[in-house]
């Protein structure tokens, strides 16, 4: 294999493997931008994975599979939203419980499906589609523009989210909710509504991420199919400093790390665990860098994790 071939192989794998991370990361960015720290990403992904897989398995329809995954993720997020906004429960505890719940839920529902595979018609609908012209660019063409539908959807969602956050009125309002809910409230913004809506959208994206894992990444159902990627997404949100564009770079970078591990195993004896560690290690480095830089721009939303109650003194 020439160097170009190896590079193309790794980059293509990085984008394919990074896409579920991207969806989950974008979902968590939306959630955290309204000031809610939802640590239930892994749980919501697993719920999306198992419901998406079983829907695709029973109906043979890939679109229904993805939709079902989205709805399942949103249901998980709804539990979190109700607990933390309406009942003002602690966000950390609620999020962790959601992860534990989602893990159990997927094992329970998926018990009978272990080892079963999706119909070829479903699998084929996620075959790579080469985009004209763009797909012919050397190295980047095959990596970025000869991919399955959901990879392209990932690009679109990231760009839309970035425009929404920084260019639109609604995005401005939702950022204000996450930064200073008191200010948002007195500006006539419905704080609870904004939080609910964005948490649910965040859950949907996490659901897609899970469904991607169970329907595309892995050929048949297996327990714990997400393999801790929800936690990587939580770390990624910090790594990319809540920026959707950087989320694409970060997700594909972390995707590359996982592919690199698999690829190098054939040549040198570095345990896969080392590569599994790298995303978290990189996140720690970024955290250190952020705190050293003391820039006001790259910090988490100011009211992240804090409940809001108008009549509080």
């Amino acid at each position, binding site marked *: 294999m020439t160097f170009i071939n190896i590079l193309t192989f790794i980059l293509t794998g990085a984008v394919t493997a990074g896409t579920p991370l991207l969806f989950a990361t974008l979902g968590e960015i939306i959630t955290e931008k309204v000031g809610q720290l939802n640590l239930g990403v892994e749980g919501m992904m697993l719920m999306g994975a198992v419901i998406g897989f079983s829907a695709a398995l029973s109906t043979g329809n890939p679109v229904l599979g993805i939709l079902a995954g989205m709805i399942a993720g949103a249901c998980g997020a709804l539990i979190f939203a109700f607990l933390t906004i309406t009942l003002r429960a602690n966000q950390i505890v609620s999020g962790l419980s959601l992860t534990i719940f989602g893990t159990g839920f997927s094992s329970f529902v998926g018990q009978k499906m272990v080892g079963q595979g999706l119909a070829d018609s479903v699998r084929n609908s996620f075959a790579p589609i080469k985009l004209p012209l763009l797909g012919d660019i050397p190295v980047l063409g095959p990596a970025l523009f000869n991919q399955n539908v959901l990879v392209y959807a990932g690009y679109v969602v990231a760009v839309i989210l970035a425009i929404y956050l920084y*260019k*639109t*009125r*609604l995005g*401005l*309002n939702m*950022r*204000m909710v996450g*930064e*200073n809910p*008191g*200010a*948002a*409230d*007195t*500006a*006539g*913004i*419905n704080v609870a509504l904004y939080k609910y809506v964005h948490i649910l959208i965040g859950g949907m994206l996490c659901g897609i991420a899970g469904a991607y894992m169970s329907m595309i990444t892995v050929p048949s159902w297996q327990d714990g199919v997400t393999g801790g990627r929800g936690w990587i997404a939580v770390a990624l949100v910090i790594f990319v400093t809540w920026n959707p564009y950087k989320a694409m770079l970060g997700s594909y970078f972390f995707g590359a790390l996982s592919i690199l591990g698999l690829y190098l195993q054939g040549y040198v004896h570095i345990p896969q665990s080392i590569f599994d560690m790298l995303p978290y290690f990189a996140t720690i480095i970024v955290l250190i860098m952020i705190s050293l830089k*003391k820039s*006001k*721009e790259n*910090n988490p939303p*100011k009211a992240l994790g804090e409940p809001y109650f*108008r*009549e509080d003194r």
Partner: protein
Amino acid sequence: MRNEVYIKIENLTKTFGPVIANNNVCLEVNRGEIHALLGENGSGKSTLMNMLSGIYTPDSGQIYIKGRQVTFRTPKDSMAMGIGMIHQHFKLVEVMSAKENIIAGQKGRLFVGSAKLSGKIRKISDKYGLAVDPDKKIYNMSVGEKQTVEILKVIYRGAEILILDEPTAVLTPQETEGLFKILRKMKESGSAVIIITHKLNEVMEIADKITVLRKGETVGTVNKEDTNSAELTNLMVGRAVDLSISRVECKDKKTILNIEGLTVVDDEKVKALDNISFKLSAGEILGVAGVAGSGQKELCEAIAGLFPVASGKIEYKGENIVGKNPRDIIKKGISMSFIPEDRLGMGLVASMGMVDNMILKEYQNQKGFMIDKKIARSLSQNLIKKLEINTPGIYHPVRQLSGGNIQKVLLGREIESNPHLLITAYPVRGLDINASYTIYDLLNEQKEKGVGILYIGEDLDVLIELCDRIMVICNGKITGMVDAHKVNKEQLGMMMAGETMETVMGVGA
């Protein structure tokens, strides 16, 4: 047109649990009028205004805006009726620009186009003389600028009735002048302005009418022309109060604290204190005046051993204490009470009761593994009696006490340790007249005992009356060291803005 009634409040009542915050309050404000709302802490001013701005819902009573009866369920409802409130703690997002803060929550096109909106904001700022760059980030702004953004925000949202909650608490005299100019312009253009404040001199300067609240009830409304400071105080407190602060003299004039060339560097590598030298004698109150953030906090913390000293000497009773840890410094008899803006940030643990808060300092004198609460208990009970602290009990979380009582607990604890040097920052921040005078008396009592006091203050009138000397700092440098009875507010204000003592005092004298 001139006497059109904008706001009419009738028999408004609001309770928080067993506490009656407002009881049958009535208020009437006309178009083109600046109306001051005066009252001690806990008299229900803020509660009343929060009901008017839709943050609290009243239990009973009516609000009429321009003759129409209204019910506010959310701040949005109140805004729709043209009411804009400027809160004491600014409701701004630091990482956003002025423009973003102003337009958030407003209806308009989906995309936030830049040029047109900036133009509209500029137009309003020109009309009222509100100088703000719409694209400047809030975290780069001074307190005065932030307040201007707040005012711009509510005007942009169409407010014709402006409510300001203690707007001058954090401003320099010059900034206050600027604010008053803006308010007068608003009044001329036909708006109604309600201003909540403790400062009587400001009330007499700016207000047309004054309504006084006491213990949640309206005591009365008076025209400014028909009243004076003394009468207003009587109305507020319910009895005559002597408004002068006595300045006691102390004979023992040994130098207790000698600071030479003190320089400290903050996190952003900026010199927070730049080559500061001064002396403080026993039995002296040395006032420190300066715009918020000029280095006051760093000065207190450097002396208390909480902030690293880059260079210079801090001599306490002839011994250099630079580099000593805070506990050793406390043991030597230096005590600090710092009242931060949120009152609880430093010094007290909000969720603990008085007893536990006393132990935080007192436990160091105890031996053994277990803590003896007996001393702390009696100490708490003594303080309650001596300082008239109003609390349901010594175990009641201090967070739930009123601001004045929290400050008494903190200052009381520091004084109980019999310090020789007392550093106190903003001890009367947000306190009403009665509570403030209790604190001044406490300080004077300490002074008579020969304690050296470093008093970091905000209210220049008080600094002038209470202190022996006043040191003015600006951007970490000393711009003036003056005798308190030889200086006036304007001179202090100019030095706070960076003018040197020579030019200022030369002009003044």
